[in-house]
C-alpha cells in the first residue's frame, strides 16, 4: 500500500504547528499543575510533541521509507548507481534513529520520575507540591 502524502506545503506546516501546540500544552501542564503525577503527565506530552517535530522535520514530500528491499529496484540490476538513485527518494533516516532512541529514553525518564513520586507519597502522604514544604527526607 502506498502511503505517500498529499503534495502540499500545508501538510508539512500543519505538522509543525501541531507539534509546537502539543509542546506548549505539555509545558503548561509541567509548570502550572500542583499534583506531581500531573507534572509527569505534562513531561510525557512534551516528549510526544518533540518526537513528532523531529520526525516531521526529516520528512521529504512524497518520499519512501528508508528501508532497502530488492523489490524496490523493479528489475534494475543491483549496481551502486541504482542504489544511489533509489536513496534520493527516501526520507531522512537520521532523525528517525534519534527519535527511536529518544522514545526509549523518555520511557526511562518517566519510570524514574514515577518511582520518585511513589517514594515522596510514602513519606509525606500527599502529592500536592504546596503541602510538601520541607525537603528533608
Amino acid at each position, binding site marked *: 500500500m502506498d*502511503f505517500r*502524502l*498529499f503534495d*502540499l506545503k500545508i*501538510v508539512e506546516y*500543519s*505538522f509543525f504547528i*501541531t507539534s509546537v*501546540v*502539543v509542546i506548549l*500544552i*505539555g509545558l*503548561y*501542564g509541567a509548570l502550572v*499543575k*500542583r*499534583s506531581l*503525577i*500531573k507534572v*509527569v*503527565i*505534562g513531561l*510525557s*506530552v512534551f516528549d*510526544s*510533541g518533540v*518526537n*513528532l517535530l523531529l*520526525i*516531521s522535520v526529516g*520528512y521529504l514530500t512524497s*518520499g*519512501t*521509507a*528508508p*528501508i532497502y528491499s530488492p523489490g524496490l529496484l523493479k528489475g534494475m540490476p543491483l549496481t551502486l548507481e541504482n542504489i544511489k538513485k533509489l536513496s534520493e527518494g*527516501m*526520507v531522512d533516516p537520521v532523525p*528517525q534513529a534519534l*527519535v*527511536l532512541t529518544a*522514545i*526509549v529514553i523518555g*520511557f526511562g525518564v*518517566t*519510570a524514574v520520575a*514515577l518511582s520518585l*513520586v*511513589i517514594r515522596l*507519597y510514602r513519606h509525606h*502522604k*500527599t*502529592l*500536592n507540591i504546596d*503541602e510538601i514544604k520541607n525537603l528533608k527526607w
Partner: protein
Amino acid sequence: MIYYLILIIFLLLLMIGAAIYSIAQKDLLYAVIGTGLISLVLSILFLLLQAPDVALTEAAIGVALTTIVFIITIRNTVRHEDEEKNRRTLPNQTTK
C-alpha cells in the same frame, strides 16, 4: 488523495484534543488514558510520515508500557488531583 489530507487533519486535531484533555482532566486515571491516546495517534502519524520502525516502537512503549507504569503509580498513590476527593473516595487509607 484528498482522503489522506482529511485523515491527517483529523489525526492532528485528535492529538491536540487528547493533549488538552489529559492536562485538564482532574481524574488522573482518565488523564493517563488520554496520554495513551496521544501515543496511539502519534504512532499512526509516524506510519504516515514514512517511519514504520519508529511507529512500532511508539506503539509498544508509548501505548502499553507507559500506561502500565502510570496505572501502577496511581494504584500505589492517589487517584484524584484535588486532595478532598481522595479522602472521600478512599476512607480505608490512613491519612494524616
